[in-house]
């Protein structure tokens, strides 16, 4: 089932061979990496962690990571089966990522961009204070430098372990987007499998331009929750990229192999040109 596929999503597993999660064809791992982890038989897009994602997007060696030292504090003293602090340590060891987002600056086809990429391999890409802060700083950096900001969403939603502080990251990031807009900056949101919950209901939905990878699960409420609430089967293709495109909520579906070129083209065609302040109202809304 599609939902199971997303739940059990992993980065490409260890070993030389693996089976495509969609068409079940056997794939040689080395080959798969060369084609950006997209199945050559059916086009299924395997999940990427933040580091892998960034490598597919930016010019070689152009990415400089920033704010990599940010780590969450367990303000709530949250314990479920284990303390949140233990959970974070384990998540880091398991995923090799220090948090559910990686941010910094890089170049796409020579164009300098501020980039923040969510990482599903770390606690399901959930948005706690660190993710919210990195997204916000990426937006602020874009505003300060006058460069576009790209945020790649890949998340199950807000992180319960930081309670209302996680929830408030929705407001914080939305406010930062408004600030960037006040200064005429371009914000591109890229939705990948999966993008749900509080991430959908905040920065992911607020791109000047919103792109999505094919067949990504995108929605506010998770399919399980809806199914349990309504006790009915969900329609075929419900909450997939193609469904959202048809309903008018995303601008375009872009296959992974075309993402770099499409992002570069979008920036060239849309981003404010140096020496031209079209679109900017000079921050008059903020009175700064």
């Amino acid at each position, binding site marked *: 089932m599609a939902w199971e596929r997303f739940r059990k999503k992993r980065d490409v597993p260890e070993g030389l061979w693996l089976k495509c999660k969609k068409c079940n064809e056997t794939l040689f791992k080395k080959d798969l990496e060369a084609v950006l982890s997209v199945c050559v038989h059916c086009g299924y897009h395997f999940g990427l962690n933040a580091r892998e994602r960034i490598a597919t997007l930016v010019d070689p060696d152009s990415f400089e990571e920033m704010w*990599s030292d940010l780590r969450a504090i367990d303000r709530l003293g949250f314990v479920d*089966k284990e303390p949140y602090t233990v959970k974070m340590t384990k998540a880091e060891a398991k995923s090799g990522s220090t948090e559910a987002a990686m941010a910094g600056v890089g170049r796409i086809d020579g164009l300098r961009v501020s980039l923040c990429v969510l990482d599903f391999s770390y606690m399901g890409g959930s948005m706690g204070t660190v993710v919210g802060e990195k997204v916000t700083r990426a937006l602020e950096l874009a505003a300060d430098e006058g460069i576009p900001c790209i945020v790649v969403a890949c998340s199950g939603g807000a992180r319960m372990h930081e309670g209302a502080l996680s929830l408030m*990251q929705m*407001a*914080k990031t939305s406010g930062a987007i408004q600030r960037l807009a006040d200064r005429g900056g371009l914000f591109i949101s890229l939705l990948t499998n999966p993008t749900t919950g509080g991430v959908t209901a905040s920065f992911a939905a607020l791109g000047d331009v919103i792109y999505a990878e094919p067949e990504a699960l995108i929605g506010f409420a998770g399919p399980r929750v809806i199914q349990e609430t309504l006790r009915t089967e*969900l329609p075929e293709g419900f909450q997939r990229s193609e469904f959202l495109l048809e309903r008018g909520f995303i601008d375009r579906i872009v296959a992974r192999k075309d993402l770099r070129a499409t992002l570069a083209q979008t920036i060239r065609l849309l981003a404010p040109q140096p020496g031209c302040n079209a679109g900017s109202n000079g921050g008059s809304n903020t009175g700064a």
Partner: protein
Amino acid sequence: MADSKSTKNTTRTPKAHEVLDFERPIHELEGKIAELEALSSDTNLKLGGEITPLKHRLNRLVQEVFRAISPWQQVQVARAAGRPLCEDFVEGMCDELVELHGDRNFRDDPAMMTAIARIGSHRVMVVAHRKGRDTREKIKAHFGCAHPEGYRKALRKMKLAEKFGLPIVALINTPGAYPGIGAEERGQGWAIAENMQAMFALKVPIVSIVVGEGGSGGALGIGVADRVLMMEHAYYSVISPEGCAAILWGDAKRAPDAAKALRLCSKDLLSFGVVDAVLEEPVGAAHRAPAAAVQELKRVIIEQLDQLGRVPMAELLDMRFKKFRAMGTLFADAAAVR
């Protein structure tokens, strides 16, 4: 088409409030006092000497019980039947009220109430979750769970408020935004996100108050404000305790544990800086004295509007963003973590 409910609030006959499990001892003592009072008026027995100490005891008992309630009991209080709903607060505190309907796009969402109103000397736009008072209303309003058109209705009215310089008063009481097929088809996530972004730019003062359930994104969709207040016995959470328990332990029945872990009570939210102030409720919570709770909310809103009205707009917008910008900005020392 709008049913205009002009001038003066109608006072509803207070219905008996729900008795929560932990309130049983209070309920029993209240019953005893009522019995004695009935007896003393029926007969000519002078029972004042018996009743007065009992009333003192009752007062102490209510205070003790409510001082010691658990987070889960707190959630039950926030949801209790008989606790004033947004619609009760709105009707009770507005000196004039004209409800306005519709998002001019899809339909009128009964789960979101919007109205132009006067509170004291202030003309305001009220946006509020509506849970519904009787079964019919509750079903129509999906028990206070708004659809995207509800959030868009709120946004449309807030922009109307901005056009005519009316401050916005947002009352929050929702289990969460509605999770359904239609809601997803019409962009629930988009509607909430766009509201938040727009609220950061609205050039009028905004006061929001969580009066009952502050259910996640559904609450925040009208929750960005210059002053975010919370009633003492309300809760505000990233996820419902039931939903949290189902995810963490695969068992919604562990909601009491989740409620504790989530730190969703007003004093917690105040300590995190998520809310600016907590409104004290009558002893034993608002459902025991709804009228007093309504008047206190009215007083506080007027006070807040008076203060915010004096702040220059550019400064207000700047402060509005900076307040939310500062939420969740304490981080661990990476070196210490390693």
